[in-house]
């Protein structure tokens, strides 16, 4: 996003690049790890597991063997960076762990606000000569945020007219009509020169917000904008949110009012969220609930792919030549299918392959911007074990876990996970909602970390070269 047209951004990049170089020279690197993912992809649980397992690994527990191997057994300690005078809330890993360990357990609620945390990894140096200078440290900067807000990223480059046209086209898709019919009837009935009337703006926004919520909660769609209409954050709804797409977006009256609010919203999201936190990062983990998208149906699956592509395009714009020269560009992007414990072990390979197809466009975009990419499958907290179920007289591989609500043990047969985008016949089994499982028995203090699947392999690939 920095260019010669943005001298302040350029200066910031130069200062940041110099600082990075200096830190690398004295062995005190600082790495911003952007964990991105659509809503319900599992970002909060991923961060909780990552922090708990890294802290445990720093105490000597073998919670992340692949990362330990990548570090050559030189990881000596991991600690949370003490709180300073930050104005952003601190990611409360201990509260999340305690909620998961309590009886009955509770998964983290929908994330409503930003929170950050920094971890310092202390490592022995590789060489004898360097060892005389003491340990090296790598500080990982982490951020948690509502996934809905990430979908505002593609809005940064659009004006109200372009956004309206694109959004209305999506809302008119037949699969979304059950949720969007009322709103579409309202906006289609508005004349082109409708006057600036606040009551109309409020009514239109309320209908639009309800349509977005229904799309998300009932139909499993993810590409829904603006993010704060669905998740307004801790400050609640503000007048700048009261806009919605119009079929006649140009001109005065109501269209001008909504265009002003759209512009103000985009500017605020840029200043308060994207510029401070997503402008520059060196490593990125893109979390995708592939199974959720697969079970939500063909349209929701395609919608997830489109949303991921749009976010990746918007994020890739910052990886220009200057950023690469200054060492600020994103150099590794890992795409990870979360909740991999919801399928038996023999299907996880298929899950990874399917994710590869789903993120083909973002992966190609990241590679073109100079980043190395990889595809993984993981469960940040493993909640099931493999089992066998009998369906229609045939044994099938299934998983067994304890259901969150009922507290009863259950086997779940997740269906066949295809290795490539499913054929039309596959969607006959769509609209299945995977039940939530209880987490396994956990130590509330997280002394030994938490059970996971594949988190260590992901971290080893993502940050192993820095250790």
């Amino acid at each position: 996003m920095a260019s010669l047209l943005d001298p302040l951004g350029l200066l910031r990049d130069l200062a940041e690049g110099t600082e990075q170089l200096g830190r690398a020279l004295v062995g005190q690197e600082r790495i911003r790890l952007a964990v991105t993912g659509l809503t319900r992809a599992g970002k909060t649980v991923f961060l909780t597991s990552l922090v708990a397992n890294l802290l445990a690994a720093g105490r000597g527990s073998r919670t992340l063997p692949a990362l330990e191997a990548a570090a050559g057994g030189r990881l000596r300690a991991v600690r949370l960076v003490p709180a300073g005078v930050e104005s952003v809330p601190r990611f409360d890993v201990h509260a999340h762990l305690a909620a998961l360990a309590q009886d009955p357990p509770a998964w983290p609620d929908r994330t409503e606000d930003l929170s950050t945390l920094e971890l310092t990894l202390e490592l022995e140096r590789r060489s004898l000569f360097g060892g005389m200078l003491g340990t090296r440290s790598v500080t990982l900067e982490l951020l948690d945020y509502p996934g809905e807000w990430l979908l505002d990223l593609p809005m940064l480059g659009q004006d109200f007219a372009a956004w309206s046209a694109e959004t209305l086209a999506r809302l008119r898709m037949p699969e979304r009509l059950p949720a969007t019919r009322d709103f579409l009837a309202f906006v289609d009935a508005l004349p082109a020169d409708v006057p600036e009337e606040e009551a109309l703006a409020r009514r239109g926004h309320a209908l639009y917000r309800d349509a977005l919520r229904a799309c998300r909660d009932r139909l499993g769609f993810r590409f829904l904008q603006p993010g704060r209409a669905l998740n307004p954050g801790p400050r609640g709804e503000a007048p700048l949110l009261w806009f919605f797409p119009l079929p006649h977006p140009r001109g005065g009256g109501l269209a001008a009012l909504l265009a002003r609010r759209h512009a103000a919203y985009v500017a605020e999201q840029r200043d308060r969220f994207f510029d401070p936190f997503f402008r520059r990062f060196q490593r990125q983990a893109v979390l995708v609930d592939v199974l959720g998208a697969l079970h939500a149906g063909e349209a929701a699956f395609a919608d997830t792919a489109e949303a991921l592509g749009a976010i990746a395009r918007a994020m890739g714009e910052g990886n220009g030549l200057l950023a690469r020269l200054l060492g600020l560009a994103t150099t590794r992007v890992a795409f990870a299918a979360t909740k991999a414990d919801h399928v038996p072990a023999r299907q996880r390979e298929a899950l990874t392959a399917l994710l590869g197809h789903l993120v083909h466009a973002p992966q190609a975009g990241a590679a073109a911007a100079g980043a190395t990419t990889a595809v993984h499958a993981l469960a940040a907290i493993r909640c099931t074990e493999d089992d066998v179920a009998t369906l229609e007289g045939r044994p099938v591989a299934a998983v067994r876990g304890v259901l969150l609500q009922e507290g009863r043990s259950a086997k779940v047969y997740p269906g066949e996970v295809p290795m490539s985008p499913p054929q039309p016949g596959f969607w006959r089994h769509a609209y299945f909602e995977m039940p939530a499982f209880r987490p396994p028995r956990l130590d509330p203090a997280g002394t030994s970390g938490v059970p996971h699947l594949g988190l260590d392999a992901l971290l080893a690939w993502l940050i192993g070269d820095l250790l």
Partner: protein
Amino acid sequence: MSDAPPPGSHRGDAATGAAPPGPRVILDEQGRAAPRLDFGWEQAVVPVAPPPAPRRWSGLGRLAAGAGVLVLGLSALDAANFVAAQFERGAALGWVTLGVVLAGFGLIASAGWAEMRGLLRLRSVDRARAAFARGDLEAARTEVIRWAAGVEEAAAIQPALREARSLEELRGLLSAPLRSLESQASTLGRNAAVQAFSVTAISPSPGLDALVFAWRGVRLVRQVAALHGIRPGIAATAALLRRTLFDAATVAATDIAVDAAARALLTNPLLEKVAGEAAAGAVAARRMLRLARAAAEACRVFPPG
């Protein structure tokens, strides 16, 4: 086992004919609450003694070691030949030459030993911090007892440290001497700040400012390290400076902003000169205070927070 509808919506799974079965939930027949799964995780990840990290000679290390061997080895050989030649000329001359050579090499060896001791003390702090971080009571106790032996404020608590039964007890016992050391480090920082302020305000050139600031900063770091019983040599000072450098530099951006604001507000040339220099002095003083705090944190036997 019995097939049951899933908790969530489950439309479109009317699988008929030869179509493969769709996803489904099969509840346990027993119908009673089940205990949470237990993967035996705590036993699976139980800490084991970390394997010694493989160390290799870096290019720089080999270069330095090679240069050292050449300089010292050839000098020693040359000196030995010279002593032998002197003995051939006369016994008295030989003994005097031998004494000079031994004194010279002895001083070099003692300087090397002092450097090594400074570095080893710093490594001991690293080991103690790592032991606290991984919750290893035995290693932490051994290291803090060793540390306490070299620090006047902590010498008296060595017997209590030996008896400590948990890391919390160790932390509690060490908190009083560490508070005292931090207060002394702050005093040292304030003294350095006053000196930096005065020198910056009266010095004729910015180049001299930087030189004085650097010298006073290095001295301050060594003073704070000495408080913690480290008594660093050149190599240990470099290692300490490396650790404190970036912590102290984090205030640099604020300093620049304060400096620019102070200069922008003043238009009178004389006022600008006086206040501008004072602002620069204030910035230098604040950096010294920060440096003292950062150095004290780098030398603590367990990290703050």
